[in-house]
């Protein structure tokens, strides 16, 4: 890590913000691309599950396309997929799981180990649609926080989930999970599960910003730990960043954008980053970009070299 970051002043930061606000309509729409993609994957998964359960979507006779739900499913009758967190809880109750679900859990876990654990949160989890809506409305209405909770609370909830699973002999989170309730009831028939979603919506809207996903959800905490060494990352270019702070204002987990630490590491390294793709298109200087972790170092060295060239000119 050769060169010190260039010192941008307040004027540069304001210029960046101005650049963002004077974006053309097209550029503005283009900056929504990841959000649109995320909605597509979120609803796409729901549709695949729903179609296989209700409309007989099959790849062959009696072989549903995607049978089950996010807890456990079977893709084209061949590939089992299992929620690794649910599997862990059931394992802790003392039940010996069938091989199929263990293989499924390994596949899902391996996938998220590569692309980032919390990719589940931003790209698959149906509750994210609700919390995103709530967060958006909260910003529009300018609602201020009522209480503050530490974001590390979710790790305690995670520990409690595992402990209670072992003690009570019931998969503790699976029995109360609003994610599971909402998801199951969309696919297998409605009940009172939507009230849990409503509660999350109101909690996030009126009480604590990103309250559920960012502070409480043990599944998110689990995937945060899974994603610590993931390969798909947001690269940070310290040479172009003017510290305007626009990224942190749209990030649902702004603590992962601690620029001082990003200067050192060169990418968003926290497992709590969900690779949601909000920061990257919003950045007026293009300092945050999705990248493949093994290439990040060399890309940053190149960026440093370009910056040095530009300054010496």
């Amino acid at each position, binding site marked *: 890590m050769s060169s010190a970051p260039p010192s941008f002043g307040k004027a540069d930061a304001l210029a960046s913000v101005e650049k963002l606000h004077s974006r053309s309509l097209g550029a503005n729409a283009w900056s929504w691309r990841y959000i649109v993609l995320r909605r597509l994957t979120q609803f796409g998964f729901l549709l695949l599950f729903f179609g296989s359960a209700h409309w007989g979507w099959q790849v062959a006779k009696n072989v*549903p396309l995607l049978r089950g739900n996010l807890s456990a*499913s079977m893709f084209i009758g061949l590939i089992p997929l299992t*929620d690794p967190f649910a599997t862990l809880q059931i394992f802790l109750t003392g039940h010996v*799981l069938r091989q199929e679900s263990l293989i499924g859990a390994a596949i899902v876990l391996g996938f998220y180990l590569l692309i980032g654990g919390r990719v589940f949160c931003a790209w698959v989890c149906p509750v994210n649609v609700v919390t995103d809506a709530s967060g958006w409305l909260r910003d529009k209405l300018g609602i201020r926080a009522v209480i503050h909770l530490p974001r590390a609370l979710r790790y305690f909830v995670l520990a409690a989930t595992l402990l*209670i699973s072992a*003690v009570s002999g019931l*998969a*503790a989170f699976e*029995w109360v999970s609003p994610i599971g309730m909402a998801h199951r*009831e969309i696919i297998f028939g409605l009940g009172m599960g939507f009230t849990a979603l409503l509660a999350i919506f109101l909690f996030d809207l009126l009480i604590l910003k990103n309250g559920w996903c960012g502070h409480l959800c043990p599944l998110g905490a689990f995937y945060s730990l899974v994603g610590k060494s993931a390969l798909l990352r947001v690269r940070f270019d310290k040479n172009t960043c003017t510290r305007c702070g626009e990224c942190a204002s749209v990030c649902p987990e702004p603590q992962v954008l601690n620029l001082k630490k990003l200067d050192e590491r060169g990418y968003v390294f926290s497992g709590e980053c969900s690779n949601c793709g909000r920061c990257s298109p919003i950045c007026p200087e293009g300092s945050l970009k999705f990248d493949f972790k093994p290439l990040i170092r060399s890309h940053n060295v190149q960026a440093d070299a370009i910056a040095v060239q530009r300054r010496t000119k």
Partner: protein
Amino acid sequence: MSEQGPSGLHPTRRDFLVKLAQGAAIAGTGALLWDYILRNEARAAPYALRPPGALAENDFNAACIKCGQCVVDCPPHILKLQPAGGNLPIGMPFYTPRTGACIMCPDIPCMNACPTGALSPKLKRIEDARMGLAVIDIENCLSYKGLRCEICHRECPIKGKAITLETHPRQTSRHAMFIPLVHSDACTGCGICEKACPTEIAAIRILPHKLVQGKIGEHYRLGWTFDTEVTQDFKPAAAPPSSAPDAPVPKTAPGMDYLNSGGL
């Protein structure tokens, strides 16, 4: 620095200990509440009719991952996952015989779809499934009123084994009766009988074994049946061996009380 709190502890350490206690109190309260909610939710489990091969209640509660794959693969679509706020524990499969009875597929697709083993693959023949037990309300059964009904007997898929007819000949001012009897050694609890029962509310119903089945106990000896050995000095297999030659019959011996122990 002589910063000693009233209890003689250094203030920072005191703060730390208080914080620790507060954290532990919150965590403990939360965990207890959570545990209570879980147990409360599981309380209705004995009332649920589970798909074939389901493990015993507590094991099933632990093992079911609530994925609904059995529901998707059920050919007559009788299985449902319990939504939140219902009468049964959340998220797990059940069926309601009156509206949808199990048709006892020979290949047991629901069980084969189960990824965790909550529906145990140890079940090889659907006839060995024990989902529940048919129970007859003899006050409302048409056959007990002397009407010729016997629909349950005719519809039963375990023909002539799970439900048999007991005939009572005609007597003065009394109809002849053809009374259905359920046999738990053959009844799978599929619920075809309950679905077919013509009374307004079914007079034959499927209930979980735990709710209806009694147990005779080891100490009864049915001397008049052929498979019970009748001897004067019956010794239970589990009786503890006594070393003394004239040891009195242990109090725990089955069937022994003041009437035949020589006491009184």
